[in-house]
């Protein structure tokens, strides 16, 4: 059985800094997989490599058996990959609706796009209330919702989430994570990168632990929650 997303022995550099030292991981269809680790562990770099924003120096990234490295970043949306970038990356001078339209940029089916905008509004009613507002004026939580809604507009089969909990109040984090579960139930496979290991391991099926560019642990989420090292370093359990 081939995995939906397969990353095999990927090395990547920022200049002379060896950011990824042979990462291998895979994500099966329908899963939520989380990648946890501290600052500078290489979590964002891994996502950027998947999206072709960075080229690995060796190793490969395959989606449904097809090598993604031969594509430009702008071709990935059509391949079914969407990313919610770190810090949300909403287009702050564009309105909420325009942001959502940008998410469907590669699509031509107007009716389908209109339908999906309504779907996103159903998922995040706040966005509907603010559809004409310039998104730079939204709160952090609303911007996170917008970034996720925008990613959903491309009807992705694989959604990459980069620290959706960053800078949000605990209540909002709960809401965002339950939406992630909802999106997954509707059929989107999810790779979730998080520093908030506690929350991430609650919704994920499996997890990988990344430390300074290497995967040091991988297991199902339940076992990781019980793992002594994970408890000490990432869950703050003494």
């Amino acid at each position: 059985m081939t995995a939906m997303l397969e990353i095999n022995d990927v090395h990547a550099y920022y200049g002379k800094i060896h950011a990824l030292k042979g990462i291998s991981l895979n994500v099966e269809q329908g899963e939520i997989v989380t990648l946890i680790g501290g600052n500078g562990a290489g979590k964002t770099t891994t996502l950027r490599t998947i999206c072709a924003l960075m080229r690995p120096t060796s190793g490969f990234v395959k989606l449904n058996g097809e090598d993604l490295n031969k594509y430009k970043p702008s071709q990935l949306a059509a391949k079914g990959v969407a990313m919610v970038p770190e810090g949300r990356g909403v287009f702050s001078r564009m309105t909420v609706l325009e942001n959502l339209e940008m998410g469907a940029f590669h699509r031509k089916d107007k009716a389908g796009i209109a339908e999906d905008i309504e779907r996103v509004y159903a998922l995040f009613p706040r966005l509907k209330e603010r559809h004409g507002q310039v998104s730079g004026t939204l709160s952090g939580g609303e911007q996170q919702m917008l970034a996720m809604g925008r990613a959903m507009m491309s009807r992705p089969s694989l959604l990459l989430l980069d620290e959706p909990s960053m800078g949000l109040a605990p209540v909002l984090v709960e809401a965002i994570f339950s939406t992630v579960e909802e999106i997954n139930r509707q059929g989107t496979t999810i790779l979730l990168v998080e520093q908030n290991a506690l929350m991430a391991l609650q919704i994920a099926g499996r997890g990988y632990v990344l430390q300074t560019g290497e995967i040091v642990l991988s297991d199902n989420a339940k076992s990781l929650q019980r793992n002594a090292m994970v408890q000490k370093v990432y869950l703050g359990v003494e």
Partner: protein
Amino acid sequence: MTLSQRLRDIDWIDVWLWIFRILIIVGVVIGIVRKLFFGAGTAYGVDDWLDFFISGLSQGGLYALIALGYTMVYGVLFMINFAHGEFFMSGGMAATYLVASTLAATGFMNEQPIIYLVLVMVFSVLTSMSVSLLTERIAYRPLRRAPRLVPLITAIGASFFWQYIFRGFFGSAVKAFPVPTILEGRVNVLGLDFLKVRLMVIIVSIVALIALYLFVQKTKTGKSIRAVAEDKDVAALMGIDVDRAIATTFAVGAMMAGIAAVLWGLVFKQVIFSMGFVPGIKAFTAAVLGGIGSIPGAALGGFFLGVIEAVGPPLILEGLGAPGAHQLKDVTAFLLLVLVLIFRPQGIIGERLAEKKA
């Protein structure tokens, strides 16, 4: 607190700037008062003032059209494209030598003046767009990841390159731009007396500016340009071809420059290979005045600069007793640039707040 402590706390640069501000305001007020109430310098009637204003407005329309190219490219690449004046020149030169003078010589120009103007404009726009797309592809795109100073210097090089290419093709002489007879003379509209060409420039530039604004705000391509201006990586993840959006930005800016070049020809009735330099610098000033990166800002800055340049010297400088005030319009324009850079570096419609947020 002792006096010496208080003196030490004063920021002397601020003090100097305040003195400077007050001096300018006093100077402007004295100039205007002496001119209007004490009849300093030449006496002008209402008609004369209206004439200054209208010619300023039409000149401003030209600046606005060219300024859009600077501001849009800056918006997506954070680069001052100093070759933009040459995009303007290339359209004007090629259209004059290859189309306008031929059509004028055969008499077609005065038989079908409207078709003539459209043909000349289309040819000018196509030339400007080709030159700008070539420059972007060959000189700028390979430097996308270079430090910001590198493309700036390349732009200056590209500017010289195009000037001398066009001098090589068409020679270094001044060439007359043929103006159809229907555009000669004056026309009365709404009780105001316009030079026909001036009126045409004002109308065409306003229509072009509105069309461009709608293009950027409403069309899918326009929105992709705005998305690329905000975040290239994220825009790419949305499926936007970033290189293509940037090329489109250059093309649209050059299109406006190409239109401006023909209007410029109609007003000044001549072209030369070096004609891009001064309008280029003036339009850049207008873009900075309005707040570089902002499209409404560039339009506003252009008209503002044009009007100040036309009305400022007779109103303020003559009032202050400056000799030959009409020849000082360039001084007025660049003085305005310096003042804006000192007192309001983000321009009239500044984007300082938005930048901070990003």
